[in-house]
């Protein structure tokens, strides 16, 4: 059943004008409006995610994939003007328009974001366990032992050595920090996890294990997921369906293997053929 259904998602940086949308996008070949200079990071984006499903979003830099992911994760960028409608299971009205409290509750319990840059997602001074515990404590957990048990459970599931639980996060390797982010995202059993470029900063040898770990946890817990990546391999590994973005627009969507092996759109064909 459908968990999230979004229509007309749009993020614009700058003042914007009446011709922004028609002057940008795939056919225009740019995401910057030639009339007013505003950047249309993403526009006219419709998508849906079902319970337990993984949706991939691929594109190159400037494609708008991160802006789209941030909108879905209810991040607010004070410099951007965001519009659109998100219909979310169990909530009335537009999820993008809810008040601060509701948004905070959603982001604590239902929708989690794994930031591209670790510094945005973790507090390096807290212990690894503390970073994960923060999610639980913000959600109202008040038993120390319960929090410890759950943190340990998450460390095991994300394959972080439990004996490092009480070390400062700044002493962890990049791969371990990424795992802590994932553990933290999964702490309160969210319905949706948004992964923004999950392989950033990871060595190649570490990437595969982290992704495979996430895939296993995702399947076992039935967590829906939106994975944003410029790396087709990442999306191929994790996603059931994929969107291809270019110049702020979705140019193609479909089953991941279909998009990769039978690309329809000219840009997608170029993209697929460019993979080394």
């Amino acid at each position: 059943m459908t968990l999230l259904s979004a229509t007309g998602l749009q993020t614009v940086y700058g003042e914007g004008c009446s011709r922004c949308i028609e002057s940008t996008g795939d056919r225009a070949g740019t995401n910057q409006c030639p009339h007013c200079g505003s950047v249309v990071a993403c526009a006219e984006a419709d998508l849906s995610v079902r319970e337990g499903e993984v949706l991939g979003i691929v594109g190159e830099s400037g494609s708008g994939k991160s802006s789209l992911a941030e909108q879905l994760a209810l991040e607010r960028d004070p410099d951007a003007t965001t519009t659109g409608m998100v219909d979310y299971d169990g909530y009335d009205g537009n999820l993008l328009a809810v008040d601060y409290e509701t948004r905070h509750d959603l982001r604590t319990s239902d929708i989690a974001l794994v930031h591209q840059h670790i510094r945005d997602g973790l507090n390096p001074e807290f212990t690894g366990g503390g970073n994960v515990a923060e999610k639980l404590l913000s959600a109202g957990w008040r038993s120390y032992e319960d929090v410890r048990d759950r943190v340990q459970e998450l460390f095991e599931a994300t394959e972080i050595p439990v004996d490092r639980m009480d070390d400062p996060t700044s002493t962890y390797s990049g791969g371990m920090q990424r795992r802590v982010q994932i553990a933290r995202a999964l702490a309160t059993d969210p319905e949706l996890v948004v992964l923004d470029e999950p392989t950033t900063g990871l060595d190649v040898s570490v990437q595969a294990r982290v992704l495979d770990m996430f895939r296993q946890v995702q399947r076992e817990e039935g967590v829906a997921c939106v994975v944003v990546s410029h790396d087709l391999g990442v999306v191929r590994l994790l996603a059931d369906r994929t969107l291809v973005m270019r110049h702020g627009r979705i140019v193609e969507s479909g089953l991941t293997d279909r998009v990769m092996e039978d690309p329809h759109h000219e840009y997608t064909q170029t993209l697929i053929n460019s993979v080394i």
Partner: protein
Amino acid sequence: MTDQIMTDEPPETVEYQLRTADESSVATDGGTTVSSDTVDGETDAVDATLDALESDGLSGYNYAYLDEHTKREVRRSMLKAVAIPGHQVPYASRPMPLARGWGTGGIQASLSILGPDDRFKVIDQGADESVNAANIRRLAENTAEIETTTDTTDADLIQTRHRIPEEVLTDDQILVLQVPITDALRKVDPSDAANRRRHAHKNYGKMWVHLYENVVEWGEINISSRYPTMVGGRYLMDPSPIPRWDVPKLDDADNLFVFAAGREARIYAVPPHTDVEPLAFSDREFTVERFGGQSCHACGSTDTYLVEVSEEAGDTDRETNNTDREFETRYACNDSSFCAKRRENPELPKDHHLDRGGVDWGPKTASETTGSRKTAAGKTKSPGGEAE
């Protein structure tokens, strides 16, 4: 407490008049130009001016030192603070004849609400006799013409630094606490802007992580002062550097607590009968200090907050000037005025001055039904009847 706010008289203002010499010009803000021709004449004029100052100086101050506008602002901030328990209300903190960090907030709060019929007690770390407490008391005596006392049960207003008195306070008493750092969240984030947002949205996750990490490191919450507490289930409050021992006294008390900071320019309050709960985990509870079975060497109390006193043992050997002396550690009540009472009457309960029975306030307050002091066992019982 005072009806200054309703006065018909215009506020008294201070006016200085410096006598002018023949050729010098004087500005009323005190600047005086002196011409070199008439130095001797000038000196006389200046001396006379200074003499005049000494006699006019104090009588030129407004009642209770502060001008009425300042008092009005402080009172208004206090009312706001009372209306929103635990919420920090900014106010324009004035320069005081005391350095910042020495109780300028507390003084402004006290002086704003003292009236000529009030009795004022000042303590610093539990002692009336400390230099700081004495100076503050003297300022109030001189400028507000009030009587002062060391007896907690006899005071209308008590200003305190870092302690709440042992004796139970009543509904016609106010306790003003001196506060160095007003925001409990300062420990977890130095950014005031971010913390204000957190308070606004009751977003205290970071403090809870701080407590979690504390337990990870020490096995229990070992925060000793400025213990984070929830007021009215809504605002996280820093109760000022009072010991944990005193924190339960804030919960469902009969009196008003006012917290004032001069340097940080904030006032907050805990009104009577407010729910105040120290943060703790359900399985790592809040506990007060333990004194390991020690008692006060002067009065024998085992249910008051004790401090260590290091004293020379025995007599000094004056003739031999023996500098190799042994020091022994003894314990003494921190609340010196209550200790003095207990020296007279060791069985004196903390609510001896109240008619009604069964008052249970603060750690180990005797209740009428049991009739005797409970021994300090390291656990606290709050007035709500909550067992720990």
